[in-house]
């Protein structure tokens, strides 16, 4: 079969935008996985991503080195996740209320700082993005995409083949057994939440200095929740999250690609429906295909018996 060059270029564009847009979803989904596997619901992913995206741009703006931006993004994400960890693990607060609080705080704080640093309300000035890597046929890609592909097997190995991963999973499945084995449940839950902060913030950095080179008010626009959906879709498993995240990335990325492709502009009119695919597929998957099985002890604060 002979493919004409225009179609090949279009395929390249679609693969490119799928990877660019799917990477933050996979990274944040992996973060959500670490948190939920340890038994803590983290709907603050959206807020942590936003904070990471902002911190990456701000740090790059001041240092002119995007790698420092990535580092600062991870630190800010871990700090914000630490708040969630203290409230959920130490103070036994409601996970969803705490997550909502972080979500609202991050949305307000990043918009405020946008005004404080640059005096603008919508979009920050452009900064140096991460150095892009060229792949023939696909085009320029952010380095975080390759880091993401490297992290997925690492996460799988850590989760299923190390004592740390076993304990983390036990904290979410059966904390009293873990406690009986003499291991501190709270410690592993805190590790889970902090890891989720680091991963979600890395996803945010891909949004702001990987794919783009600026920060915009509310730029995550619900991608933290799509990442949560990818995590559920991927059955709390790194490989599943990779596939689900890239699939959702594809449904988002196809819009970018088709809008500039000749002969496909009629699709712009139904772009809203293409954008709905991730949301609809999650509802279909959860409701019709099969029941999702989350970790057993999720959202249940672990209270040692002697403390009651």
């Amino acid at each position, binding site marked *: 079969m002979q493919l004409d060059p225009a179609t090949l270029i279009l395929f390249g564009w679609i693969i490119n935008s799928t990877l660019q847009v799917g990477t933050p979803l996979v990274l944040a989904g992996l973060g959500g996985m670490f948190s939920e596997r340890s038994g803590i619901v983290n709907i603050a992913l959206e807020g942590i991503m936003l904070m990471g995206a902002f911190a990456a741009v701000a740090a790059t703006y001041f240092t002119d080195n995007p790698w420092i931006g990535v580092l600062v993004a991870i630190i800010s994400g871990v700090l914000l996740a630490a708040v969630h960890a203290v409230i959920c693990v130490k103070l036994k607060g409601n996970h969803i*209320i705490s997550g909502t609080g*972080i979500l*609202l705080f991050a949305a307000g704080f990043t918009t405020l700082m946008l005004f404080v640093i640059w005096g603008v309300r919508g979009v920050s000035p452009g900064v140096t993005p991460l150095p892009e890597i060229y792949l023939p046929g696909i085009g320029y890609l952010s380095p975080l995409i390759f880091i993401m592909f490297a992290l997925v097997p690492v996460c799988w190995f850590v989760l299923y083949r190390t004592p740390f991963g076993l304990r983390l999973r036990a904290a979410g499945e059966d904390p009293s057994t873990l406690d009986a084995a003499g291991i501190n449940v709270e410690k592993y839950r805190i590790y889970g939440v902090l890891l989720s902060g680091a991963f979600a913030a890395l996803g945010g950095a891909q949004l702001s200095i990987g794919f783009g080179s600026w920060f915009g008010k509310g730029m995550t626009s619900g991608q933290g929740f799509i990442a949560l959906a990818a995590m559920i879709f991927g059955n709390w498993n790194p490989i599943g999250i990779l596939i689900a995240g890239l699939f959702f990335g594809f449904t988002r990325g196809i819009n970018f690609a088709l809008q500039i492709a000749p002969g496909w502009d009629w699709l712009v009119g139904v772009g809203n429906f293409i954008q709905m695919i991730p*949301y609809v597929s999650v509802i279909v998957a*959860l*409701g019709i295909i099969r029941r999702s099985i989350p970790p057993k002890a999720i959202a249940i604060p672990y209270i040692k018996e002697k403390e009651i």
Partner: protein
Amino acid sequence: MMSESEPNEYEISEWQKPEKKRRGIGGIFGGLWKAYVNFLDWSNLKPLLIQIGWAISSIILSMFVASLIMLATGYDPRIAFETLIFGALDQPDQILWYATPLIFTGLAVALAFKAGLFNIGAEGQLYMGSMAATVVGFMILLPPVIHPFIALLVGILMGGVWALVPGLLKAYRGAHEVVTTMMMSFIAILLTQWLAAGPLQEPGQIQPQAQTPRIFITAQLPKLFGSNFLNFGFIIGIFAVIVVWLLLNRTVLGYEMRAVGKSETAARAAGINPKKMIVISLFISGCLAGLAGAVEILGYHHRFRDGWSAGLGFDGITVAVLGANNPIGVLFGAIFFGFLRAGSIPMQTLGGVPAEMIDVIQGLVVLFVAAPKIVQWLAKKGIGWAKWIVKEPVKATPIFLGAIMALIGGIAVLAVGAGMLGTLVQAGLIGDIFNLIMTDPFIATHVGILTVALIFGLISLAVFYGMIVTRRWSPIILIPSSIIWIAIGYVTMILYGGTLLIPLVVLGVLGMVFAIWSLILIYRQDVSYMEVKTSAT
């Protein structure tokens, strides 16, 4: 042998006799009196007071953290809060107007929460409700009073239907409602955006925007009190608060919903169908969110414009959390956030502080409300006072707050004295201060205030110690100290100007309130912190 006076077990004793029902005015007053006594009953009041206390503490703590953020980013918190508070009080109609949709979305989240469900997608239900109400508003011709009524009803049903899908999925497929309501919310936003930019777009716009035509004037809700903003929707909001309160607390349905929220297994054992209750609660929750959208369109916006809500559904979560999921609490929570929103514009234009500060405060409030176990945590860490507050909150809290007032007041007054002393030293007047006191009345007053300030600053710190270890003399001395704080504030304001008076008056009044309260507690009961300190482990 049984004596005459002892009650016979076959005889109905006095308290078992059915109470004689009084009718008429006397009956009503008797009922009201009983309700009042019931309200004052400590065991009923205590959890309520603790919740109100924690909500207010969260607000104060978040204001404090927000002040720190303002200081760190180079804004003056005093100016910010001044412009915020006075700006909001200048336009009370806007407070209630901003509060109106929050009442509905707050009720929506709170009602679902009572049934153990987290309706995080109120935003989408609100969009669907508003779109449905708009369609009825501009497509159908109806007489004036019936038109808004039908539009509201359609909006309510549309919101309910949108929440029905997550409800059914939760009840019959076990899909978690946090995920599904959120997904439905994004679908709703994209769908209404497509409708407003496509099939239902207002024709003949010069610069095409994603908006529908205006609704007919017959469908609009009347404005209240000649305000440009406040409309009849607020009255519907009050009505909704009463209806939801009655539904939750005075009906079988509400009882069953709350039972499912407390424990699904227990509810099932009691013969309640939890699946049915999950579906019904999410449906009603969606109805309330849909009503929020319908009321906003019919009352103020008068047309659907893409992105008009900007997070009213999420703000509903904040309101419900702050109001402890109690309908009346939701009303107050909504008015509080309405107050912040109304004051945010003057804060930005007059005070120069970005309005986004309000969003930060909102997030912080939720975070603090989410962590009510903070005192228990401190108690576990071995801080004696936290232990006492956990054990006997009624006795310990006012005494503790009195001590804190004494500490802050003491430091403030000492700072005033030290500041004045510093001025004297700088002016090089210390050398012949005794001559100057004799000759210059201004310097004499100055030195007088300085001395009083330093002495009472130290006394206040001593009172702080006394309150902490619950010495009997400490509240007695706290009362005159509080008066001195106010006096120092007043005199310094007269002499040098400045606004030191306001914080010192606040401190003084609070100090006196807690002093009298602690005085009663310490003298009436044998309160001792030391006992708790030694007994608690």
